[in-house]
Each structure stands twice: as structure tokens, then as C-alpha cells.
């Protein structure tokens, strides 16, 4: 906690969706880019790779053959997300950001990371599902807003209204 005392920790959760990329860019623009090189927060970018079996959502005789492919695909996606996030950080000259990839359910992972690093702020994008989809799929941003032990920023990509 030696370095953590001076700078509060900010955790940003990313997945492969546009909204979370937008959330990361928004965060960097708002809180990091104008203050280079002396950033007011310590940045930690987290990607939660879904578990291959849970991502499939069905169980059946064919699952054993499909799992390795799905797993490889998920790893590939995770690598792409990590690269993209690093690229965004570089393009905004934000150095010193830590990136970690975890496997499992995004909600639990983000809350655990917040606890582990005693983060003061968690930033997540929002898929902007409607009420019914939220009830069925669940919403990571909702869960984090209620259960994380720190303040949460939910960044929504603005829809261009005509």
C-alpha cells in the first residue's frame, strides 16, 4: 500500500463492447490526459474473460468438442481487448496503467479487484439494455453500482439524437 496511499486507485472495467472502450476513453480524457504526467489517480484496467463453459450457455453431448474452440476464441478476444486498451492509453500518453485479465464473471471480479486494491473509484461502461433485458441478462454496471465497496461511475455512450 506504499504507493497506494498517495494516489487513489481507479479501476476501469473493459470488455470488447464499444461502450466500454468509450468508457475508457472518456475516463482517460477526463481524469488523466489533461494532467500528464502527474496523474491524480493510479489506473488499473481490468478485463474479465468469461469462462468458456458459462459462455456457451448450453449443456449437451457436443459440448466437450466445442469448449476448446470457444476457449481459444475467448482468449483471442481478451488479447484483442488488452491490446486495444493499451493502444488507447498510449495514444493519450497515459503511462503507468496496469492491466489485468481475470477469468470468470465480470461482476464478481470487478468487486473483488476493488476490494483487493482498496480502489476509490470504479468505472464501467453500460450496454444500455432496457429493463427487460436487464432482468434477463443482468447488468454488470447495475451490480457494481450496488455492490462495489467504492464509488462507481457508469459511462454511457451518448446516442446521437436527431
Amino acid at each position, binding site marked *: 500500500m506504499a504507493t497506494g496511499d498517495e494516489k*487513489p486507485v481507479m479501476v476501469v472495467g473493459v470488455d470488447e463492447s464499444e461502450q466500454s472502450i468509450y*468508457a475508457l*476513453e*472518456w475516463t482517460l*480524457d*477526463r*481524469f488523466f490526459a489533461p*494532467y500528464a504526467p502527474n496523474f*491524480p489517480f493510479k489506473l488499473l484496467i481490468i478485463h474479465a474473460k468469461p469462462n468458456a463453459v458459462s459462455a456457451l450457455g448450453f449443456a449437451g453431448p457436443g459440448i466437450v468438442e466445442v469448449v476448446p474452440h470457444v476457449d481459444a476464441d475467448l482468449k483471442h478476444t481478451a488479447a484483442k481487448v488488452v491490446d486495444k486498451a493499451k493502444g488507447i492509453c498510449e*495514444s*493519450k500518453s497515459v503511462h503507468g496503467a496496469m492491466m489485468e485479465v481475470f477469468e470468470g464473471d465480470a461482476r464478481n471480479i470487478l468487486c473483488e479487484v476493488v476490494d483487493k486494491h482498496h480502489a*476509490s*473509484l470504479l468505472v464501467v461502461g*453500460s450496454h444500455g439494455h432496457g*429493463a427487460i433485458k436487464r432482468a434477463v441478462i443482468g447488468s454488470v*454496471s*447495475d451490480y457494481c*453500482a*450496488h455492490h*462495489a*465497496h*467504492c*464509488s*462507481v*461511475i*457508469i*459511462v*454511457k455512450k*451518448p*446516442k*446521437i*439524437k436527431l
Partner: protein
Amino acid sequence: MADNHATAALKTSTVEKQPETTEAEAPRVMTRTKRMMVAIDESDSSFYALQWVIDHFSDLLMTTETAEAEGDLLTVVHVQSQFYHFAAFPAGPGGATAVYASTAMIESVKKAQQEASAALLSRALQMCRAKQIRAETLVLEGDAKDMICQAVEQMHVDLLVVGSRGLGKIKRAFLGSVSDYCAQHASCPILIVRPPKEITK
């Protein structure tokens, strides 16, 4: 009146075009005027949220020269609940009858509400001034959720800050949660500040 409508329409169309062009030209450059809005009510958690914002974002909000040029602005908004102009009192075994409240009563309630919000807002302003933050206050009347989301749209807020009472799931479903509603419906990013329960800072 027609003029007003025309100019209003023009204004909204030009303003809405701006975000499109900025996104098209330089997706990295966001509008420099950062406007943060903090919603306050009588609860402690909303004042804690204001304090949290002041503490953590003091770099962003302090009135240094650069901030003045960029136009960082903290808006503190308080939404007064509407006072219905009639109240239903059960008149007796016959059932409920609606009794129109006398004007004197309405006046005194309104005055009490105004004094209460003035007290809240002056407390908020004091907190801001202590850290040299440029702040403005705003009082709205109506349903908190809707008014806050409307204000966000009209004033082009960059970040909305709300406290959270830490209601459980069931209470949220019944009592409704302003922070929940705003998180889903506000057109800007929202910061939900959680009160420290047993969290040691």
C-alpha cells in the same frame, strides 16, 4: 411567441449538431467545458457525495487559471418535492374526501421548503468554497428523478453525481431509487458515491 419558438428550435439544433461534429472530427477531443452536477437532498449520503467529489476531484475543479479558461463548473442541484395542492383526509366512516388546502397553508409550506433548500444549498456552497471550487446552485421542483435527468440534458452536464442510500434490493424495488433511475436514464455518465459503512479508508 413564434420568434421564441424559432430561436429555441435553432438553438437546440445547433447545439445538437456540435457533439456530432466533434465526434466526427476528432473522437479524442471532448468538449472542454466540464460541467459536473451534484444532486443534493436532506440525506447525509448526498452531502457525503458532495464532499467526496470535492476531495477526489479537487484537481479538476479548483479555480486555477487553466480551470477558468476551460470552464470547469460544479452545479449543485436540489429538487424540491412537489406539494400537492389538495390533501385527502379520511373524513370518517363515509370515506375519504378531498379537502383543498387553504392558500395560507400552501404559502407556509412553500416558504418552509424554500428555506430548507436554501439552507441545504448554502451548506453545500460553503463546502465548495472551502476548497476554492467554482460552484453554482440550482433549485428544481418536481419529481427528483425526472427533474435531474431533464436538467442533465438541458444543461449538457458531463458528469452527474448522486449519493446512494445503500438500500437493499427489496427496498429499492418498493421505494424506488433516484440513483438507480438516473443511472439508467440520464444521458451522461453518472457517479454513484457509496457511503462508507464499515469500510475503513
